[in-house]
């Protein structure tokens, strides 16, 4: 059935519908991910988004349910050019999978033209519909996307991911399972809490370190989390990933800004400033840190994106706080960024050692 992807500015991209036939609206995001459709569709960061995948022959590699990043699918729609009707590992085909998830999709779209349009005009709202008359376009223009994205994806109740190592409290802003996978691999004894948990509630869990996870939307929509960081960062090692990193910056009087060209690509080069080492990592962020503010703050820039110079990682000069904007847990993308978790654990242990040394003297 012929359907239409209609952008907020009235541009129409025709295609053929598949998956659910409902009308859907969301923030349109262009994803240059090479692989990992499974991860993207189930990534809580994509809550409220319509994702346009720009790779050709989507789904040839099959659908692997072990790759899920949350229990349910999260995005509001998918847009593709060509898809594969069969899979190399005889798993379910891409279109059948999307149908099963009850997500609306549109294929045969000129995703290249779409991607070019967005790179010239910026990210915007979009809708997948059956018609493309003026009424439909007006509807999209009038629609306000809800600002409570984090609330919708964050866990309501705390839950543990038990192990024998360091106690890590993860503030769930839209946590990807792969962060837990990385922590489990490092024997961390994690507890995952709601995004609105207070500093006191978190401290009562006696964490060795605290992670503010990645998540969807604008960090300014969740001011409570900023306050929580301001209290906790003085006493505990803190790692911010993606949205978590933006919150850390805001908690320390730095500003953030929207990227002219958003980073949604599973393999972009990031350089470690100290050593010059280049790593390829997954990026999925539309905001970045304002260079001016970071420059005059107590943060040092630890990582930058090689292609456009965007700040990708920071570290506090004397408090044990670190943050990265990219996704060190990969999923999808190269595994070069896993070391960030090792660094955080080193940071925790170094703090512990210093405390131990102090205790001996006191």
């Amino acid at each position, binding site marked *: 059935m012929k359907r239409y992807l209609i952008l907020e500015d009235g541009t129409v991209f025709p295609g053929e519908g598949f998956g659910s036939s409902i009308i859907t609206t969301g923030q349109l995001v262009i994803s240059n991910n090479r692989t990992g459709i499974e991860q993207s569709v189930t990534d809580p960061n994509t809550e409220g988004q319509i994702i346009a995948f720009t790779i050709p022959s989507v789904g040839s590699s099959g659908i692997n349910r072990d790759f899920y990043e949350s229990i349910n699918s999260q995005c509001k729609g998918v847009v593709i050019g060509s898809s594969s009707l069969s899979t190399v590992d005889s798993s379910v085909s891409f279109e059948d999978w999307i149908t099963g998830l009850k997500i609306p999709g549109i294929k045969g779209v000129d995703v290249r033209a779409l991607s070019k349009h967005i790179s010239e005009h910026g990210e915007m709202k979009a809708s997948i519909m059956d018609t493309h008359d003026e009424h439909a376009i007006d509807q999209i223009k009038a629609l306000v996307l809800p600002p409570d994205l984090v609330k919708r994806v964050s866990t309501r109740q705390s839950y543990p991911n038990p192990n024998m190592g360091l106690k890590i409290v993860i503030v769930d802003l839209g946590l990807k399972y792969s962060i837990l996978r990385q922590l489990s691999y490092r024997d961390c004894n994690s507890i995952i809490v709601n995004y609105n948990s207070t500093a006191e509630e978190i401290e009562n869990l006696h964490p060795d370190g605290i992670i503010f996870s990645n998540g969807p939307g604008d960090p300014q929509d969740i001011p409570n989390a900023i306050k929580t960081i301001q209290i906790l960062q003085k006493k505990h090692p803190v790692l911010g990933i993606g949205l978590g990193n933006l919150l850390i910056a805001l908690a320390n009087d730095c500003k953030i800004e929207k990227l002219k060209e958003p980073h949604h690509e599973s393999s972009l080069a990031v350089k*470690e*400033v*100290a*050593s*010059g*080492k280049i790593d390829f990592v997954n990026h999925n962020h539309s905001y970045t840190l304002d260079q001016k503010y970071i420059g005059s703050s107590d943060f*040092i*820039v*630890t990582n930058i994106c090689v292609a456009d110079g965007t700040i990708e990682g920071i*570290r*506090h*000069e*004397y*408090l*044990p706080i670190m943050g990265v904007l990219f996704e060190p847990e990969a999923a999808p993308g190269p595994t070069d960024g896993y*070391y960030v978790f*090792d*660094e955080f654990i*080193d940071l925790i242990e*170094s703090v512990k050692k210093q405390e131990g040394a102090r205790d001996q003297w006191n």
Partner: protein
Amino acid sequence: MAKEIIDGQTMTRALTRITYEIIERNKGIDDLVLVGIKTRGVFVAHRIESRLKQLENIKIPVAELDITPYRDDKTHDEKDITNIKAEPLNIDINNKHVILTDDVLYTGRTIRAAMDALMSAGRPKKISLAVLVDRGHRELPIRADFVGKNIPTSQKEKIKVSMKEIDGEDKIEIE
């Protein structure tokens, strides 16, 4: 047979972490001076220096300290301090915070000799110690402030540090 226990990437990361810790524990790194103990300690010093420069855009002076001018044939682990005579330093360390760097911390005797040499060259405000590897078996009350990696060893084992500048590649082996 030599067994690689630390590869190039891990060594790179350890040096980066030491650098972060140096920044973290020294509010203002203006009065820092790096003094590397020859041979590989000097490379450690230079690598930390280049990281500090990249991160903070500050150039820290680096000096070389040769405490075994006559004993180049001996491996580092076997250093005997009885004959040690230090060459003069080429930078001013008076009232500076000196970070002494070496590749392996073992008995502590090398470090003691290095400190003697430093004290005879001036009066530093403070001396800290950064090492790539701490392998235990101290014979003197010396402790490193910054450690890349703690590696438990028996006294029979040898630790061999290779660095790109001189050995062509970065790695640490145990044999």
